[in-house]
């Protein structure tokens, strides 16, 4: 199966700092998602991104979050001013074609101190 890769695998940051999480490399795919999972909790939908535009976002995805595809391949999630409660695993996923399945990346573990 074609895989989604994410960088970094781990990110430690100070509260109030900006972080950028990346899905790399992505090509010939138009439909992506970001999810997060706080330790011990459910996987939560953040945002879907289709053809270089946000198609849907959750209540979690507030003004501190943004997504973009700056160079046509990398797909990034930016958190402008991190909070302690942003500590979580962040998963990027791409839409599959055969079963409408989603292929998840390995995740980025974000720790905010």
């Amino acid at each position, binding site marked *: 199966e074609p895989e989604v890769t994410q960088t970094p695998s781990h990110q430690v940051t100070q509260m109030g700092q900006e972080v950028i999480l990346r899905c790399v490399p992505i090509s010939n795919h138009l439909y992506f998602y970001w999810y997060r999972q706080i330790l011990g909790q459910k996987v*939560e939908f953040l945002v*879907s991104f289709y053809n270089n535009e946000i198609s*849907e976002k*959750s209540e979690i995805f507030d003004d501190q979050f943004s997504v973009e595809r700056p160079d046509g391949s990398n797909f990034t999630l930016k958190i402008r001013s991190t909070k302690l409660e942003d500590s979580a695993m962040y998963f990027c*996923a791409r839409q599959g074609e055969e*079963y*409408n*399945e989603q292929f*998840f990346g390995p995740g980025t573990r974000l720790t905010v101190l």
Partner: protein
Amino acid sequence: LAKTTQPISMDSYEGQEVNITCSHNNIATNDYITWYQQFPSQGPRFIIQGYKTKVTNEVASLFIPADRKSSTLSLPRVSLSDTAVYYCLVVGGASKIIFGSGTRLSIRP
């Protein structure tokens, strides 16, 4: 999005067949039943999807009765590496996934 209900946890032993049942009473005509697996600190992984009757792949089988209000994921001859959380979802197309708590399956030697 149709709500699903599945057991919170299940235990079994290596070599046994494990069946996880999910109910989805409000499934819509265009919805498919989809199962994902998640290991600790990893992203969910698609296992199998079906619309009705039975579907089988190299990992699992999915049984869906005629009324489609429930489904059963069957894992043949489980091993320790099948210990994971299993999510039952009802999917109507390319859209966000709303994950529940899933079923935490523990396999013992």
